[in-house]
């Protein structure tokens, strides 16, 4: 079976178009879609109340440690009574790193200890709630 030159060109072109489209769709799924979903979550929970923000970030921490902490218990944050901006910032940074998709709720305690051992002067300790 032989193909005419225009047909060969069209086959190659179609293959490249499909490859490029797949590449872009994968990129959008991995990037723009995630950002849209994340943004919509903020729209739905609001962000004017710090307690809401903290609760949301704790959810992310739960995802972070889902592979280490058995499911079944509550999250508790041990931190200064005034949950200051610094803790806030650091927790969010820690929580957004390498987030792990969580299959079911995990339970653990998150404690922030100011002992200078962490990369930014604080350390996040995760313990299982008894």
């Amino acid at each position, binding site marked *: 079976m032989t193909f005419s030159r225009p047909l060969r060109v069209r086959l190659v072109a179609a293959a490249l178009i499909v490859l490029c489209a797949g*590449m872009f769709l994968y990129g959008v799924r991995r*990037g723009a879609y995630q950002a849209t979903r994340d943004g919509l979550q903020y729209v739905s929970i609001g962000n004017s109340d710090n307690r809401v923000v903290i609760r949301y970030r704790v959810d992310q921490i739960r995802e972070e440690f889902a592979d280490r902490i058995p499911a079944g218990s509550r999250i508790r944050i041990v931190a200064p009574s005034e949950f200051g901006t610094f803790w806030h910032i650091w927790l*969010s940074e820690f929580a957004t790193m390498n987030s792990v998709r969580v299959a079911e709720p995990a339970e653990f305690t998150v404690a922030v200890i100011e002992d200078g051992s962490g990369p930014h002067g604080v350390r996040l300790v995760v313990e299982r709630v008894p």
Partner: protein
Amino acid sequence: MTAVLVALATVVVIGWPLAFALTGRVLLGTLLAPLTAGLVAAVSAVLMIVVGGRLVFWLVPLALASFVVAFVVHRRQLGPSAPHAGPVDVAFFTVPLLAPAIDVLQSPISWDSHAIYWTRAGAFTQDSAFVRYHLGDVVYRYSHTDYPPLVPASVATGWATGGVDFFSAQFVTTALTLSAIVMLAYAVRVATAGGPVWASRVAASAVALGVWTGAPLVLAAGYTDHLWTAAAVAGGLLLLLGSGPRALPVLLLTVAALTKNEGLIAAGIVAVVVTARTWRAPLRAAPVWVPVGAGVLWSVVGRVFHAESDLLANGGGERIVQVLTVHPTMRFRFDQTVDAMWSAGGKLVAVAAVVAVVGALLLRPYRTRIGIGADWPLWAVLVLFGGALVFTYLISPHRLTWHLPTSIDRTMVPLLVLASASAACWAVTAVEAFLRPSLSPPPATVTDDGPAVPDDGPAVPDDGPARFEVPRQRESSESTVPTTRGAERP
């Protein structure tokens, strides 16, 4: 929310006249305005540090001066209006971005944003003595005091009218980033303008959305990686694949060089590649070195006031020697770095490379026919920047087990965007080949022997040869790349 709106309005008002004068377009000028305002703010910050005073004292006269320059440029009509920037094109550049851009509503609590850019913006709200002390203060060494001032100065500009507010800071930084992404979409549109119009527009939208592929959740959180990447790649595309005026790409590369140190490296690499392409007439490449000069000037100012790069601190010279002598430690770090790069999007770059090779082997005449410049300069930039990235991780003073996981998804963004830009150009070429597979000269009615037919903007002079006259024209020389701007098919 009032503070956010006031800050955004301030940035747009300061940047709009110059942006409009550069583009000759109201819509595109408005979208470019945050970047021109950022440049005005960055120059103000440098003058504040070097000469003295407060940021606002420099910002106001410089903004007024930019208004005068814009008026003169516009009055004398020193350049044609930017092609391919009508309302329909602008809709393709912007509407798809609205969905992921909603992430700007996230709480402004990201680490780098506060620790680096907004802390420095806070310093810029003080006087010059405070800023000078801040740059050299060892307490703030962790916050990269050597980073260029464009973003912090822009945020401080917004704060000057709207008051200090972290949501305003996040919105202003995101406005700069989105402005750069729109310019990237515009650059893709210009580069592929000789192909089918709809394919060119879709490609522009796709590349713009592709900027989110790496580290998507920090793009609108006050980080600057996507900002300098989009600006640098947009400038590079306009220079390497386009043939229009150089003012806009030089401006974009200057934005990149004054946003982050990696942006300066990228601007330098683009300048080297452009100079290599025009080696027979090196003076033609001179403007491309302006962004590099601006970035180097900031580096000198930073060093004078004792700002220090973390990469060169704590035995940086020794680590460079270890790299050059291929020390066993460096081999281990090299393997770790390459593995991380592969996991953080290297596969997408590999797919784009396959597309580029297949396209170059089988569809090159069609690419030449629609006037898209050669692909190799983009890949030269990609390879050189990838090498610089690996080198950076090799000489990093940090443990790679910490440094790579906390940064590789962001540092890979330039490679991903360059690869997607290359793939987009080949996709438009493939559409052209699919629709018109014959390479024989078409009937006279198809040639560009009449006036240019713009898609929705004013006619642009067709300064290249007729589209089908030289189907196998050389791609490697800039002077021989045919330009078919304004001669698109509907």
